[in-house]
């Protein structure tokens, strides 16, 4: 039988990247929210992501369900290992989702609670996602395909650092998104944040890049023994970061966001190539984690039909809500 596992690697890999990029910028807007200059600016900030944020989160649910179907081992090791973290992420996402809806329906003077929920929810959810990445790098204590580690193994200095790095990274995605979607002083404010966050992100990039090979033998071997072309990735990262900085200097509007997406894609590739073929490091590869071929095929048929539809709808939504968000339009 044809091996569908590779197709599924691509589908899940694509879904995760889509999630990180799209929900990344709207979580980032939530992280920048309390630093906005005025309540009026907060309306603008929220309106830049309001039409698209829930569509962005569908990638998360699709990813969760897809993992159980295609790579059940990933689902049944990651979730128990990150038990507390997953709860924090879900609670955060729920609070900010509700804040989105009810902030606009609340009277003007009573929005403080919803503002706090929007910021807090975004911050906690982002931190948890960063910790997931850190935990993935760190690896899982497993025995006979089961997670056997402790409740807080996922919370180490290293994962706290990746969690904070994720906050900075999503913040940058949010700031450059806002440069694209706003104008005037709001845009200048976003640009100021983009500078700071880019600088901070590069610091985290250097720390993670040094810390990982120092503590992880497999990654060290990957980078220093075989596969020397991998060094193109950090080289490209530095290059893209420099271009991003320059585009900020020149007050470009769309390019900073595109370069930030490029940065994230490079981080993502670097992460995957460091660990490949392990998806539940250090013990299990994507082949170990895969479900039965007939199960992979059964769902694939449905997905091939639906995913193009979801993509078209997503593209259409972004098209409809293109252009700048202004203070006068939007909420009522």
């Amino acid at each position, binding site marked *: 039988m044809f091996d569908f596992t590779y197709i599924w690697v691509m589908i899940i890999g694509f879904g995760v990247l889509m999630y990180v990029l799209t929900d990344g910028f709207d979580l980032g807007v939530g992280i920048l929210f309390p630093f906005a200059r005025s309540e009026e600016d907060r309306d603008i900030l929220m309106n830049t992501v309001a039409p698209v944020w829930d569509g962005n989160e569908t990638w998360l649910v699709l990813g969760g369900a897809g993992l159980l*179907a295609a790579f059940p081992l990933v689902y049944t090791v990651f979730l128990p290992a990150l038990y507390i973290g997953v709860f924090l992420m879900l609670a955060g996402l729920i609070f900010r989702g509700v804040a989105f809806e009810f902030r606009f329906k609340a009277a003007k003077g009573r929005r403080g609670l919803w503002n706090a929920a929007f910021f807090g929810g975004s911050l906690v959810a982002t931190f948890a996602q960063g910790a997931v990445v850190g935990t993935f790098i760190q690896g899982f204590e497993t025995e006979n395909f089961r997670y056997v580690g402790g409740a807080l193994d996922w919370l180490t200095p290293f994962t706290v650092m990746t969690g904070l790095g994720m906050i900075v990274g999503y913040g940058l995605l949010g700031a450059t998104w806002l440069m694209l979607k706003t104008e005037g002083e709001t845009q200048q404010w976003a640009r100021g944040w983009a500078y700071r966050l880019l600088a901070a992100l590069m610091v985290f990039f250097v720390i993670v890049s040094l810390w990982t090979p120092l503590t992880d033998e497999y990654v060290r071997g990957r980078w220093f023994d075989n596969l020397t072309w991998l060094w193109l990735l950090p080289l490209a990262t530095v290059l893209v970061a420099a271009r991003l900085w320059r585009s900020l200097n020149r007050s470009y509007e769309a390019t900073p966001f595109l370069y930030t997406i490029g940065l994230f894609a490079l981080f993502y590739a670097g992460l995957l190539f460091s660990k490949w073929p392990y998806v539940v490091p250090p013990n299990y590869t994507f082949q170990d984690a895969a479900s039965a071929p007939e199960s992979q095929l059964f769902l694939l048929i449905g997905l091939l039909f639906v995913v193009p539809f979801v993509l078209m709808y997503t593209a259409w939504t972004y098209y409809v809500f293109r252009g700048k*968000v202004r203070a006068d339009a939007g909420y009522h």
Partner: protein
Amino acid sequence: MELDPLLLSRIQFAFVVSFHAIFPVFTIGLATYIALLEGIAYRTQDPHWARLSQFWIKVFAVVFGMGVVSGLVMAFQFGTNWSEFSYRSANFLGPVLAYEVVTAFFLEAAFLGVLLFGRNKVPPGVHLFAAIMVAVGTFISSFWILSANSWMQTPAGFELRDGMVHVTSWLEAIFNPSFPYRFAHMAVASLLTGGFVVAGISAWYLLRGHAVTASRRALKMTLIMLAIAAPAQLIIGDYHGLNTLEHQPAKVAAMEGAWETQEGLPLLLFAIPDQANETNHFEIGIPKLASLILTHEWDGEVQGLKDWPAAERPPVGIVFWSFRTMVAIGMVMIGVALWGAWLLYRRRLVDNRVFLRVLTLMIPLPFVAVLAGWFVTEVGRQPYVLYGVITVQEGLTPSLTGGMALFTLIGYLLVYAVVFTAGLYYLTRIVRKGIPEELEEQQDPQGRPKRPLSAADTALDEPST
């Protein structure tokens, strides 16, 4: 006291899934009703129908949104608390649950936006089509969920290799023995839930003299549906029970509170089951009736709980009383529905204020009945998570400790308390604001999301008019 991760996980799952279930069970019925209203509005061109539909679409949007939020949590519960069960059964449950998600998104992506925001933007026929597709979509979604659940109750179409489920026949696994009955029972339960909520709120409007023409029409059509669906549910439930007797006799024994295997089993109206001493206290029953219902013979033999080792018996008290709660509410619903049909026939519906008041009091009952029914079937399959194959003890996440489970249980209680208080409060505001006098011009949601909750534009905390 030692914290038991198994017990805490079961409580957490029961809490989260119960909270989730009340939203879809309502939206499935309501979506059907909205499609019907849109159909009549399309045929008659009478604006009263469109106004009614517009109002109920707002309610639908909020309830649907809450269903999505609570469903998000469900998607992760299987892995966090029941990873062993998920891992061993992923080859079937994975694709089936993923199909549910995919169906829901497909529905949302393609048709929900049109239904919620498209009334003035697309031709009426397209709007009607979207309404029908949303209703169909909710049924397809529940199809997959109930297939997964039924498979856990009456597993079929698979074999175990090294303890892992491998599907041998998708058709047999999806359409497993209890699925058709459970699906029918649940579908009609959704219609009854949606119907009694619509009837109750319409009656409340009539009592207050609000939107009288529209409310009267809504009430009449709903009562006709209820007068058919409520008795039908009794028959479907009976078949479902017979199916359970065939495949899960221990569950039926618990429902009947039957400890001894006997011919001419009485139907117990009241009893306090005593699990430890294997008996009931204070029994009041009707002789031989349970045998008649279950075997269709006065002296038919029904297996008692003592036929199973104590460790394989479900907790009898919960199953026994949940079952009675569900059936009692079902009987009340049949009575009220027939009363309404009779008043309708005598053309005395609108002046009978007692009846209208009773209808408003009926609003919470179908939700209680649905949850009680789920308690019967879920508690009744204990100690198994995959019936006869994997126990809940085996299915639990091996690394889970009592402390972790307690932390998230309290966490979910708090999150749900905040979120659903806000949601429920907002729903009551929409209902209080009432049915619009005229078809509202929809504001173009420019810069605002085309998604469920945004379809409702009632203010959250400004005084209502």
